[in-house]
């Protein structure tokens, strides 16, 4: 242990902190976009229109059968070919994550919607609301509330997965750690530190989720 030099971390901290902020920003935006898109897909999948429901099911099943790292990589390489100009690494990563995670969030939201009794939809329709209004004001708020712990657990996994953006060179926390580790030749210190940071963040988040869940069971 006496060969380890931890001062390298405090020296590099401003750079690492920037990476961590990028990771958090990516998480927050992909979570918001993913839950929004996922909810939309869940509603379409439960709609009376069979062709639309089939398209939504295909989307979900396709994305769930591909490794995330491929989605990130291929999105980064292919999209510029189609639109004729390069896409920034952050935008590219954000879109890849949003699309990928929306498949998982949509399954969670689908379970949530199915958990709300049919009678709630009936009551809303009976007052003259359209299906969309009934979803928006009656069904989805309840489904979202009920599924919050599961959505957050999925988001913890999303945060861990965000380290995969190193394949396209986005300067998130993990990539920043790698850069410093190689520059200073202090791989052990930096990767131990990275593991520690991920552990603290994800473990505290899952404690929060657990408490939330306990409170909801009591209520």
């Amino acid at each position, binding site marked *: 242990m006496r060969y380890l030099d931890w001062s390298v971390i405090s020296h590099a901290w401003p750079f690492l902190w920037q990476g961590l902020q990028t990771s958090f920003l990516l998480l927050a935006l992909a979570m918001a976009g993913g839950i929004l898109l996922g909810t939309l897909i869940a509603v379409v999948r439960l709609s009376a229109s069979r062709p639309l429901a089939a398209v939504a099911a295909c989307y979900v099943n396709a994305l769930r059968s591909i490794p995330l790292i491929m989605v990130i990589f291929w999105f980064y390489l292919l999209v510029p070919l189609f639109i004729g100009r390069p896409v920034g690494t952050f935008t590219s990563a954000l879109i890849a994550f949003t699309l990928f995670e929306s498949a998982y969030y949509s399954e969670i939201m689908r379970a949530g919607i199915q958990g709300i*009794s049919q*009678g*709630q939809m*009936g*009551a*809303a*329709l*009976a*007052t*003259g*609301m*359209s299906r969309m*209004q009934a979803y928006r*004001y*009656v069904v989805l*708020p*309840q489904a979202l*509330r009920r599924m919050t712990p599961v959505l957050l657990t999925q988001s913890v996994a999303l945060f861990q997965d965000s380290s995969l953006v190193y394949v396209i060179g986005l300067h998130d926390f993990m990539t920043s750690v790698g850069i410093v580790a190689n520059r200073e030749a202090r791989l052990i210190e930096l990767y131990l530190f990275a593991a520690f940071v991920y552990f603290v963040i994800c473990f505290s988040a899952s404690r929060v989720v657990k408490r939330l869940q306990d409170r909801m069971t009591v209520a």
Partner: protein
Amino acid sequence: MISALTVRIPTAVAPRVQPTMISMNGVSKRFGSFEVLKNCSVDVGKGEVVVVCGPSGSGKSTLIRCVNGLEAFQAGSITVDGIKLGHSTTDLTRLRRRIGMVFQHFELYPHLKVVDNITLAPIKVLGRARAEAEAKAMALLKRVGLAGKADAYPAQLSGGQQQRVAIARGLAMDPLVMLFDEPTSALDPEMINEVLDVMTELARDGMTMIVVTHEMGFARRVANRIIFMDQGQIVEDVETQRFFANPGSERAKQFLSKILNH
């Protein structure tokens, strides 16, 4: 109870000169090969109170759920206040605005306060201003005896209170017709009357009502007519008095003797 049945109580049943509010014509509905409704025709006049009774699975609930289009039907037609409901779903929301519905399991929105349960549809569907909708909600809560409960959540209320809120929610849209689908079946016995009292008052105020219920005391006191259903068919459609005194069909006689005898 038996003696009360055999004595004819003369009550003035108003002759039906009122304009027709609901007209069902030859309505049939199938779930696969099972016929839930067979060629059902009913007219309900403005201000009339009709009680629908019959054994479980006879199609009572399905019948009234067809009236506001919550259930689709395969043949026949339904007209409510001049709006025709074919077997396709035309203009359903416009129709539903004018028909209030109360469900067996209340179906209040658990994530909203009582007042917001009542104002949601008036604000979102009719585009009323919040202040106006809330003022009306408070007046309706007072009418159903729950003036102090506006800020409570449904889970904090008893079953009877929840059902009265559900009635207020239906009334908030200024409906022409109120449909009640077994409104007291899920209630503890001591809470049934508080709900029936509100419904009785509503009937006295001239609301057109179709009520699916097993509460024969309520039916006898409040209904103008009784519709008796069995196996998806309307077996009887007669004035209340006559139904209790001398039901025309064997099936209705059996039904009445079973539910009035204990």
